[in-house]
Structure formats: C-alpha cells, structure tokens
C-alpha cells in the first residue's frame, strides 16, 4: 500500500514537473518572437482586443457586484465595533490588493484561457497548425506569442478598470443602503491609500494574465483526439489557469506584503 502511494506521488510529481517544463519551454520560444511581433503588430492588437476589450462586459458585472458585496460584508463585520467612516478604506484596500486582481483573473481564465485552448486545440486537430508549419510559419510566433503578450498587457489594464468599477459598486451600496456619505467613503479611502497596494495588485494581474494565456496556448497546442480532445483541453485550461492564479496569488502575497 505504501509503495503504491509512493508510486502515485512519484507519478504526480513527474507529471507536474513535465507540465511546468512544457509551459516554460513554450514561454521561452514565444519570447524569441519580439522582432516578429514588431513587424506583425496587427496580430498583437487583434489579441489585445479579444482578451481585453471583449472581456469588459463580464469584468464590469463581476467588479460592480464584487465592490457592492465587499461594502456590505465589511459593514456587517464593522457593525458595533468600528465606525462606518472607515468603510471606504477597508473596501478600497480589499479591492486593490485582492478582489480585483484575483476575481478578474479568474473571470479571464474562464473566458480567455479556455477559449484560447479551444481555438488552438481545434486548429491542432483539424491540421491547421500543421498547415502553418508547412507554410514555413512558426505557430509559436504566429499564434502563441501574440496571445501571451496580449495577456501580460491587457490583464493589468482590465484590473485598473475593475478597480474603478468595484469602487463605484462599493460606494453605491455604502451611500444608498448604509448611509455612508460620499465624503466619508472616499475620504477614508484616500487617507489610507497606498500606492504599493495598487502596484502589487497590478503586478499580480501581470502574472495572472500572461500565465492564463500561456496555459491556454500550451494546452491548445497539445490537443489530440478530435472534438472530445478539444472539450477536455478547454476544461483543463480553465482548471490549470484557476489553480495557477490562486497559487501565484499566495506566492506573490507572501513576497509583496
């Protein structure tokens, strides 16, 4: 029984190391596409639009309600202990440090990471990626590099937007349902505002965005087995991206705070 358990742990460890290695190698190959992307800027801009602009409706809804819930829950915790004058500061710090980067990251992992895996997976099983190879076009440069770079760039942009919308959501609940004045909410948020919090949140977003796109590309490229394989890749990309975001969030939190 013990040897069986040890074998299982060994297999899982090897699997994990192989996966990490595959992703790192893909990132290294994509990193050599700098000159190519300068010449083919339209590929990058197209992906920035897909990853960033098209995520705006979903990020808006998630951020608005995240801010609203944060405000309501903070008020629940404060009641009878701390003055509501500090509500703005608490909500703002939670949004900037944790809520916006992580929730935006998870939403983008679901929408973008999975769709990249599905798109590239379909291209793999229908031989479109092989067709690129036969045309002497490097699929890593043409397909992966623009998506990964767009992920690195657009996630921080989305988190900046999410920060604003979430603050609006928090303020609306505080003002309309908790009788906190505008001056009290934003005054306390400003008093306890730290640039470090914003930078830390954006740094998290940078890694979450690049990582999510990288995982989607890596899994998409290795898809096999027709439509069933594409479905499996889509799920795997979402699961890996979500796990990556949560683990990375913990690592960055311990390093940054």
């Amino acid at each position: 029984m013990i040897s069986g358990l040890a074998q299982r742990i060994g297999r899982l460890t090897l699997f994990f190391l192989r996966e990490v290695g595959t992703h790192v190698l893909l990132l290294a190959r994509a990193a050599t596409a700098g000159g190519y992307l300068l010449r083919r800027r339209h590929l990058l801009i197209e992906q920035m639009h897909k990853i960033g602009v098209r995520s705006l409706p979903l990020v808006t809804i998630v951020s608005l309600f995240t801010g609203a819930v944060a405000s309501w829950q903070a008020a629940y915790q404060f009641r009878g202990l701390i003055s509501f004058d500090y509500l703005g500061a608490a909500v703002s710090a939670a949004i900037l440090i944790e809520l916006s980067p992580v929730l935006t990251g998870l939403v983008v992992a679901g929408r973008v990471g999975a769709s990249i895996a599905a798109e590239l997976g379909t291209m793999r099983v229908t031989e479109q990626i092989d067709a690129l190879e036969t045309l002497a076009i490097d699929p890593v440069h043409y397909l992966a590099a623009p998506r990964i770079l767009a992920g690195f760039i657009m996630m921080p942009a989305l988190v900046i937007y999410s920060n604003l919308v979430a603050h609006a959501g928090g303020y609306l609940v505080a003002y309309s349902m908790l009788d906190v004045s505008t001056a009290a909410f934003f005054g306390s948020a400003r008093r306890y505002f730290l640039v470090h919090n914003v930078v830390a949140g954006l740094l998290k977003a940078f890694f979450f965005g690049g990582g999510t796109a990288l995982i989607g590309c890596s899994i998409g490229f290795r898809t096999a087995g027709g439509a069933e394989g594409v479905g499996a890749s889509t799920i795997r990309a979402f699961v890996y991206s979500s796990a990556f975001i949560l683990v990375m969030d913990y690592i960055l939190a311990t390093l940054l705070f």
Partner: protein
Amino acid sequence: MITIHDVHKRFGEKRVLEGVSLTIPEGKTAVIVGCSGCGKTVLLRSIIGLVSPDSGSIRVGEDEVVGAERRDLFRIRRRFGMLFQGAALFDSLTVAENIGLALREHTRLSRQEIRNRVREKLEVVGLSGIEDRKPAELSGGMRKRVGLARALIMDPRYVLFDEPTTGLDPVMSDAINRLIIGTQRRLGITAIVVTHDMTSAFGIGDKIAMISDGRIVFEGTPEAFRTSALPAVKQFVRGGLDG
C-alpha cells in the same frame, strides 16, 4: 530529387515505418499507396518534417530533413507546398487571406501584388470570385482547390498531397485528379500523392510505391504495378481480402 533511406518510426509500441527506402524523381508524380493505417501519411509528413523519424535519412536535394534544426526545417519547407486531407484551411481567415498568408509572412509584396498573385493561383485551380468568402462557406471540392492554391502560392518545387480525393464524389475526384496532373505538368513540380484510391493512383502517377507492414513492397511504373505478381499488390489492386 527526394531520397528516403531506411526510415524507421514508431509511436509507443506500434511500429509504423520499418526501414522505408524510396526515391522520388524530380519533376514527376509519385503515388504512395497502401491500406489505411499502413504508414503512408506518416511517411508523407516525415518528408516535410511534421513527423520526426526515429532513424534513417530523408534528403531533399542536398538538405537532410531527419534531425534538422527547426530553422533549417523552415528553410527546407519553403520549397514545399502541402494539400491536407481535410484541406486544413484557416477558419478565421478569408479564402484570399488563406492563400496569401505565406506571401504576407515571407515577402515584402504590397497588398495589391498579393491580391493579384492570389487571384492568379485561384485561376490555376479553376476558381475565381471567391476571395472574400470564409472556408465554412465552401464545398468540400472547393476547399481542396483553395488548399491547393495555398500550397502553390510560393511556387514550390515539391507539392505533397495527402488523400486528395478522399471524401469527394467521383466527379469531383476526377476533377481533382485532372487538376493535379495539369498543375504538375504546367508548373513542372514534383508531386507526391498519398492515396488508397487506385483510380486516382493509375490516373496521375508516373511512379507508384506501395507500403505494407511499414515497408515499401513495390516501387515501379503504374503498368508494372497493375501486372505485378506480388500477392499484396494483387490484393490491393483487386480490392479483395485474399492475396
């Protein structure tokens, strides 16, 4: 000339190619036939470096494909075009963008020049006026023709055809066969066709090679193939279960 020597390839426990040796003459059409799953597509994909053989040698002119660096492979591939079984057109691009992609990536031609070259290649394959359509709007035969136009856009010396008539009705199959013959003669390319369609093989081949159990069991003219006494060849030509 393409020279294949003692190529071996296995996927896990399954041995697919077991010492394949074959010569593809310049400016001719060579047809590789064999049963489904016998390794002919793996051999075709090995020639262009999509599959890496475990051992052996594939020489394209002076260049060695087996074990070539990625950069060298891309250089070698510029001499090739390939038509895939399902055409493998890029779904997100229009017909013109599909065909012109290699020109956009590898040349400094203007948009108008690319557009003209695309139109020219579409005419070669007997299509026109469909530049702005998406692949989803095309029939199976049209997709294959567009795939061929894309394969020809860089004026390759070698064109590989993977099951070009599979999934097409007899009329469209005949049209594709005529297109392969016409293209080969007009452009002087070397064509390598993988198929299990014997009508197609006899119609277009200058040379036929047959793969069975991972080895080349026959190599010769279509006439010699038709009259061969080899049981595997006789069985394949007749289409029966027994040799």
